[in-house]
């Protein structure tokens, strides 16, 4: 689909240095400053799916909106597809697509009308815009209801229209803010396929997500964000490898979890532990195979009832936990 398919390896598509943004909000008489993004450095290579993983309020959307020229950064620089964000936002706009977290279609318009207009706003001629709209509708399996008003679409259909709108002008980079939030598992799987297809067409895809499995399965590289800062960056595999050892998850009653925590935290082979809301513990150990029998003995010896015990390889959540001291699933 892209005119300029293959990229040179290692070509940088997005480079940011020290990107910052604070918001001032008024609560009653006080004004509070929220440091939404606090110095973000990113390097995104051409043709990759780059994931921004982080909890609510981490600053993902704010970063994206800065990169998409919607809000001006308070500080820092960025180069996007070769254009300077601060000096030449007009050129950045021509080269990127952006799909907002909260949707962007108008109830009373049809998908086809929206697509044709969107293409024309990029300076594309009427006939070419119509041709592209027809093609995009087919590519996103929207042809069947292309001429129905957007308000009649399901959530998943509407999300597909929005993504089609974001790429109708064949940008070099597309920013997708939580493309799969609110979709059922099947629609999510479809959306992943569609995002992979964009990459196959030569596009660089920058997505945000708070789904661990999405970051893991879909993204070539990820940056983990928390409180406006990037706390880790790399391929999912590398990030997980950084955490040495195994994770042992023991299932306990909520009532006995506290006691077991005290007990096991004292064991020298447990490097760190985390309590689970539903009852139980996640223990970080050097080697699961030797740790499990010792854990069993200790818990049994104290007369606590064990409901389950599982051995895991570290997940991205464990990476997040290591870097921030909190679990992504809880925040």
């Amino acid at each position, binding site marked *: 689909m892209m005119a300029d398919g293959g990229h040179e390896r290692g070509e940088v598509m997005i480079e940011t240095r020290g990107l910052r943004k604070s918001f001032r909000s008024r609560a009653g008489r006080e004004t509070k400053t929220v440091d939404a993004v606090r110095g973000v450095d990113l390097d995104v290579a051409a043709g990759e799916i780059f994931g921004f993983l982080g909890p609510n309020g981490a600053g993902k959307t704010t970063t994206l909106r800065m990169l*998409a020229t*919607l809000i001006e950064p308070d500080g820092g620089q960025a180069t996007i597809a070769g254009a300077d964000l601060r000096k030449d936002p007009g050129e950045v706009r021509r080269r990127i697509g952006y799909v*907002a977290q909260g949707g*962007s279609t108008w*109830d009373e318009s049809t998908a086809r009308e929206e697509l044709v207009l969107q293409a024309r*706003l990029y300076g594309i001629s009427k006939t070419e815009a119509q041709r592209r709209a027809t093609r995009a509708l087919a590519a996103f399996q929207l042809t069947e209801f292309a001429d129905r008003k957007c308000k009649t679409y399901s959530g998943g259909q509407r999300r597909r229209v929005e993504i089609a709108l974001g790429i109708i002008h064949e940008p070099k980079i597309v920013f997708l803010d939580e493309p799969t939030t609110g979709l059922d598992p099947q629609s999510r799987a479809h959306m992943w396929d569609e995002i992979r297809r964009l990459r196959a067409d030569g596009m660089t895809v920058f997505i945000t997500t708070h789904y661990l499995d999405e970051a893991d399965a879909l993204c070539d590289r990820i940056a983990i964000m928390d409180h406006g800062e990037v706390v880790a960056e790399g391929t999912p595999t590398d990030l997980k490898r950084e955490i040495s050892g195994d994770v042992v998850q023991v299932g306990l009653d909520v009532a006995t979890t506290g006691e077991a925590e005290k007990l096991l935290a004292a064991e020298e082979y447990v490097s760190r532990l985390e309590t689970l809301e539903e009852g139980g513990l996640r223990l970080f150990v050097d080697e699961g195979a030797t740790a499990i029998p010792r854990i069993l003995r200790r818990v049994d010896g104290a007369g606590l009832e064990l409901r389950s015990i599982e051995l895991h390889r570290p997940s991205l959540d464990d990476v997040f936990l290591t870097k921030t001291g909190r679990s992504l699933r809880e925040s």
Partner: protein
Amino acid sequence: MKLARDTWLIFQRQLHLLLRNPVWVFVGVFQPVMYLLLFAPLLKPALNAPTQAEAYKIFVPGLLVLLAIFGGLFQGFGLIAELRAGVIERSRVTPVSRLALLLGRSLRDVVSLLVQAVIITLLALLFDLRVFIGDLLLAYLMLALIALMTSAVSYGVALKVKSEDALAPLMNTVAQPVLLLSGILLPLAFAPGWLQGIARWNPFSWAVDGTRALFAGDISNDRVWQGLTIIAVLAAAGVYWAARQFARSVR
């Protein structure tokens, strides 16, 4: 030219969406007709006009200016709905001209106002209103400028306050004194001196006077060029300010 092309694209879309909504079209035509049929008959005795046609000469221009002001001032509500749907943000990531985002919308409002104005004028002709075509066109220019200004201001304010709850009282607060102090419904000739003094500071009062002069066939009346100039300057300022809000609005 990019600005003209972009404006045309936005205008087309907005007009298309308006025409698709039959309720809106019906209300837009029906409301002014009601004023004309149900309110105007009270005027001849109230204004002490010698004939019904004389009464219309005073009332019709006032009604048209009223429609231009209100038609424009409340357009911001539609924009807030668009803002909420994310349509504005989606436009703002494209290279489309920010001025065109405003002008396309405001011109749609101007056109729909002019359609209303033509309907009312034609009806009034049935009631023996007579006005020269040249004067009428100049009066329409005045109306177009008023609608351009009020709709631009309404859009700009909508982008600033971002909520219907704030926009509604704000627009009402603006509209009320503007309405009362412009002599729109009844000429200020009946007003005491102090009221006339305040009204001199209301630009719409000049616009109404000018429009009335045009309907009376008095094109050389100073109020005509004065009204047109005042409104044209304000319209330009309103458009400039509102286009800046499109360029910088956050969320």
